[in-house]
């Protein structure tokens, strides 16, 4: 049942047009952060307002929407965002990665490979990959304009000098289509390789920071590294205690107060399907 007091997918048409134009420019310049006049949404900044605005401007009434947070459909904020679109856009929803046409995500890329018929919308807290090296927007804008990414190389190299490896485990910076360095949102670096040459359209929304960016399908997305310290998509060296998967990203769960712990799939849809199918 759509809430009649609001327009389809909540946003007014002027706002959707503005967001749609930003999405298209983002696709035309992969990895470049397009400024957009983010609106105040009825949920707090930092809780997915960018992703929600991108999804709202993208949804068709016949879409099937999946919302996940930390890989799970049942995390509270995923539930809240899914309810928002059920209420304002009357779209069908699903927990199945394969059954969804639009997937909004926070912090994960589903384990099930995406297809050409899908759009993946990422919620982004800090879109600027250089932000923690250079807090000023005026300066980072210049860095991107000149593709002057030496600062990032220096930081990664300092990590190696200090720790013996690049000490970034999530929001690991990538280079898109050979030009822009981009923040992939706080996904674990385990997920980074899934972004490259992906058949689906990948859209990124940062509401508070007023930026939208995009990775078109089949675009090269390279995690920054060095020849002598190549990028490794690491995860916990365990198998899922529920479905037995040895190659999905795992959550660590504390099971007692005596150091007991177990590892289970972060992607609950993937895990449940494997468990049901008797894959374990």
């Amino acid at each position, binding site marked *: 049942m759509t809430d009649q007091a609001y327009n389809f997918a909540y946003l007014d048409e*002027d706002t959707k047009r503005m967001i749609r*134009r930003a999405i298209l420019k*983002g*696709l035309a310049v992969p990895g470049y952060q397009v400024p957009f006049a983010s609106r105040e949404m009825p949920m707090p900044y930092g809780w997915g307002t960018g992703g929600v605005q991108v999804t709202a401007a993208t949804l068709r009434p016949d879409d099937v929407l999946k919302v996940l947070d930390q890989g799970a459909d049942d995390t509270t904020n995923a539930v809240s965002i899914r309810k928002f679109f059920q209420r304002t856009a009357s779209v069908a929803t699903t927990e199945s990665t394969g059954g969804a046409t639009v997937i909004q995500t926070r912090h994960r890329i589903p384990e099930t490979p995406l297809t050409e018929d899908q*759009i993946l919308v990422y919620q982004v807290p800090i879109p600027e990959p250089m932000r923690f090296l250079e807090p000023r927007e005026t300066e980072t804008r210049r860095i991107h304009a000149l593709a002057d990414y030496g600062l990032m190389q220096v930081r990664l190299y300092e990590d190696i000098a200090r720790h013996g490896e690049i000490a970034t485990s999530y929001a690991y910076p990538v280079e898109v289509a050979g030009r822009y360095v981009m923040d992939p949102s706080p996904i674990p670096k385990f997920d980074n390789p899934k972004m490259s040459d992906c058949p689906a359209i990948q859209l990124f929304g940062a509401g508070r920071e007023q930026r939208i960016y995009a990775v078109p399908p089949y*675009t090269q997305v390279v995690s920054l590294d060095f020849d002598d310290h190549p990028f490794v998509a690491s995860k916990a060296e365990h198998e899922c205690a529920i479905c037995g998967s040895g190659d999905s990203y795992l959550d660590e769960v504390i099971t007692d107060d005596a150091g007991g712990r177990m590892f289970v799939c972060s992607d609950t849809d993937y895990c449940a399907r494997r468990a049901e199918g008797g894959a374990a």
Partner: protein
Amino acid sequence: MNELSGGFADPAIESAIAFRAILKVTARPGRVETLTGHSGPAPISSAAAAVLLVLVDRTTPLHLAGDHDNPALRQWIAFHCGAPVVAAEEAVFALGSWAALTPLDRFAIGTPEYPDRAATLIVDGHDFDAKPAELRGPGIKGKAKLALPERKAFIANRARFPLGWDTFFCGGDRLAALPRSTEVR
């Protein structure tokens, strides 16, 4: 049917559906989608009419080139989009035949700091059956093909990436796109 008809009857739903076609062709250069059910005064195609209805409004100055700059179409645009009609240099969107849109160096290509501030050309009356060019780049698995009015302009446009304009091709109810990131061979 009068000279102002052909807009969206249910704007939120119809624009959402039309936008997804526009999104698809932009994300996948070479792909051709159909956009039906929209129309405006001649010579605008139904696909170009849909692109205007979805993307153009009071905040996006529009350049009308050649035969597309006529009173009936101006009136239709004023009614449905409200976009100010401007010279090529100030345009966020430009509508016309390929011949009418040239010379292309009049259009904004963005700045190094803001490459998004570049014009979008809506090439109307496009011949989708003309000799196809080979396309490579983001959005394309391997290579794709698309009929183009010429190749030279697009090769030059790609050479200044990330600056450059972006293009939609419209003819009848058919729509394709060539963002500046696409390599044309």
